[in-house]
């Protein structure tokens, strides 16, 4: 009995993959068009150029940065002049009384729970909205979705005073909670859409086998969700890692992450702005690693969540 039921969704899978393959074939054909390739290369160069400029700038001595553009290094390099130095990185990393390592650790302490908490909550909520029938589900889902349009700026002061009243300000909790609050609407929406895509028959089959919600969630839904989870995790990781506003408003001296430190690098009157490019690259290293190592999930997962069919 159970084998019969379980076999039902089997044809689904080849159909989906074959349609995916069709799409991929079409895309490959369209993209191998020489014009399209040229355009793609041009766009790629244009988009990468500022980052390359920043990278080169970060290795130039202070006076050079102030007096000429980064593109001039090529001429000087051919002329055999020493145009690069590690001084900016040295200043950004080791100058000042506070150690950058503390801020690095803080960044991780802030980011990891701020990714884990909203994903956990959003998974449960999304499952509820997708597969548990209850009264007012649609209304509630629209309400959650609508929360996305609330700009976080207007919530800062009320939220902070709530934390002060609760007596938890100055701890990491305020930052974790804030990031979770701001991330949940989008997380629930994305994961819900992905869960809805799982064929109903699959869930029903599991229910027929006697699986409760908990078992369906862990045995059926969760394994299928991996790309969507990874996509959202990367998304949230990058957002929290690069966040300055929430860290600055909700945090204090003990919780400040790397972004706050980088923002201070320019000095009281902005005179040390030449260090900023180095600071930017130091804080960029981790998100870059995360993104590059997980990027295949990123594309697959985002498409899976947002486009139906």
């Amino acid at each position, binding site marked *: 009995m159970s084998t019969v039921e379980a076999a039902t969704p089997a044809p689904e899978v080849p159909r989906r993959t074959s349609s995916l393959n069709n799409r991929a074939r079409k895309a490959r054909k369209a993209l191998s068009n020489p014009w399209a390739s040229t355009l793609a290369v041009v766009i790629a160069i244009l988009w990468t150029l500022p980052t390359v400029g920043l990278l080169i700038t970060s290795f130039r001595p*202070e*006076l050079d940065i102030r007096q000429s553009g980064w593109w001039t290094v090529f001429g000087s390099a051919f002329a055999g002049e020493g145009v690069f130095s590690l001084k900016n990185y040295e200043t950004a990393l080791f100058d000042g009384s506070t150690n950058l390592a503390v801020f690095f650790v803080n960044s991780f302490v802030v980011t990891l729970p701020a990714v884990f908490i909203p994903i956990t909550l959003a998974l449960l909520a999304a499952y509820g909205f997708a597969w548990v029938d209850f009264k007012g589900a649609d209304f509630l889902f629209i309400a959650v979705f609508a929360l996305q349009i609330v700009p976080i700026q207007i919530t800062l*002061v009320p939220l902070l*005073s709530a934390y002060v009243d609760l007596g938890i300000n100055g701890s990491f909790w305020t930052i974790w909670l804030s990031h979770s609050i701001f991330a949940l609407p989008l997380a629930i929406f994305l994961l819900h859409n992905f869960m809805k895509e799982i064929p109903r028959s699959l869930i029903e089959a599991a229910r027929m086998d006697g699986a409760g919600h908990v078992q369906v969630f862990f045995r059926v839904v969760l394994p299928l969700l991996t790309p969507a989870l990874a996509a959202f995790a990367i998304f949230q990781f990058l957002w929290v890692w690069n966040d300055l506003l929430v860290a600055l408003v909700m945090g204090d001296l003990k919780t400040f992450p790397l972004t706050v430190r980088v923002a201070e690098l320019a000095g009281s009157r902005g005179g040390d702005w030449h260090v900023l490019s180095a600071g930017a690259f130091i804080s960029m290293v981790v998100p870059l690693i995360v993104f590059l190592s997980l990027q295949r999930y990123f594309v697959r997962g985002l498409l899976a969540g947002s486009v139906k069919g």
Partner: protein
Amino acid sequence: MTIRMASKRRAVALAATGASLALVLAACADTNDGGGEDGGGEATQATIDCAAYEEFGDLEGTEVNVYTTIVEPEAETQTASYKPFEDCTGVTINYEGSREMEAQLPVRVQAGNPPDIAILPQPGLLQTLVNDYDAVLPAPKQVEANVDEGWSAEWKEYGTVDGTFYAAPLGSNVKSYVWYSPSMFADAGYEVPTTWDELMELTATIAEGNEGATRPWCAGIESGDATGWPGTDWIEDVVLRTAGPDVYDQWYTHEIPFNDPQIVDAFDTAGEILKNPDYVNGGLGGVDSIATATWTDAGYPILDGNCWMHRAANFYQTQWPEGTEVGPDGDVYAFYLPAQTADEKPTLVAGEFIGAFTDRPEVQAFQTYLSSADWANAKALATPAGGWVSANKGLDPDNLATDFDRLSAEILADPATVARFDASDLMPAAVGTDSFWNGMVEWFASDESSQQVTDTIEDSWPKN
């Protein structure tokens, strides 16, 4: 309150004045060599009279949170200057510097989470905090006594809102300076001008020898989201010189409109230099390049010989590239921006103020320390590389690190000096940190006339 100095090892406290003077001189010599590897660490530390803080009771183990705009590297010398107080009382000072402080402080105040003490970079912020949030506490009597003793009535007035004295001044900046290269002047046989007419004559003389990108003046007003402020300083300095301090007071209090003919005149007088393509913008481009040149780098053409003079505040001292020697015989130095006559000394100043949001004994004790001459001297000793000065009368000029800082202290202490606070800091925020800045950008970049610019700024003045 006697002030003695001691080496970092407090055990070998040196009481004799002669010995301590030698120590200070040694500290100067160190930095003059250009060695200054790390600032705060090697600084001599002042010993202070702890008796002043006994009346606040036993403060051992308490903490005071300070919130300020002063970040690294100046933050190091700030925290070093708190050391004598911490040693005396056992209070721990938690120092938090942020460039976003001016935006963050009102947020924290509204949320009921203010710091104990905030170092306010301008009186305008103090007024906002008092009038809009009712958050700052009036200064305790010990602080007021210190300020009455050490500061002039004008400085006390800047920390006063509607007759209540809130905030003691902390440091002072002198903005009426023209940076130049002493050796270039000596080689060309030019004298430092002592009147405005001499300054204009010198400018014309230099302009005759313009070659390539070389011009008598260079200027730049780009400063991120505060772009325009160096331009407002220029105008304020000229208003003080062409219209006089009384008109200046009426101007920032809006007793006369912003587009009053005397102010338009001042714009035009500044424009004779800043908008004359023969006079600007040495090594940087044409008149419009003033709007886009970064203020921190705008004086650098002096080092290449492309520019002769650059008007900038005393804190420009720390903006010069590493290895630049600042001094009467060094690579660069500054002279006082001359007034109409050599006897007049109108001077544009600025400074920070100490606002308190709580009144625990340790906070009041620390507030008292910051307003005292003891602190001013401790700060001077904690700043071996220079770049800091105070108008506190109790500050011993010998404790200052550089000739240039002593020059600033001299100007601040000179009885002939008529000090006026930076007007854009005193005007309503809609003008002082918005339309006045933008007006300066338009004046240079779009070549708007002085009348147009002042009219636009006058229209933006809040009406109530």
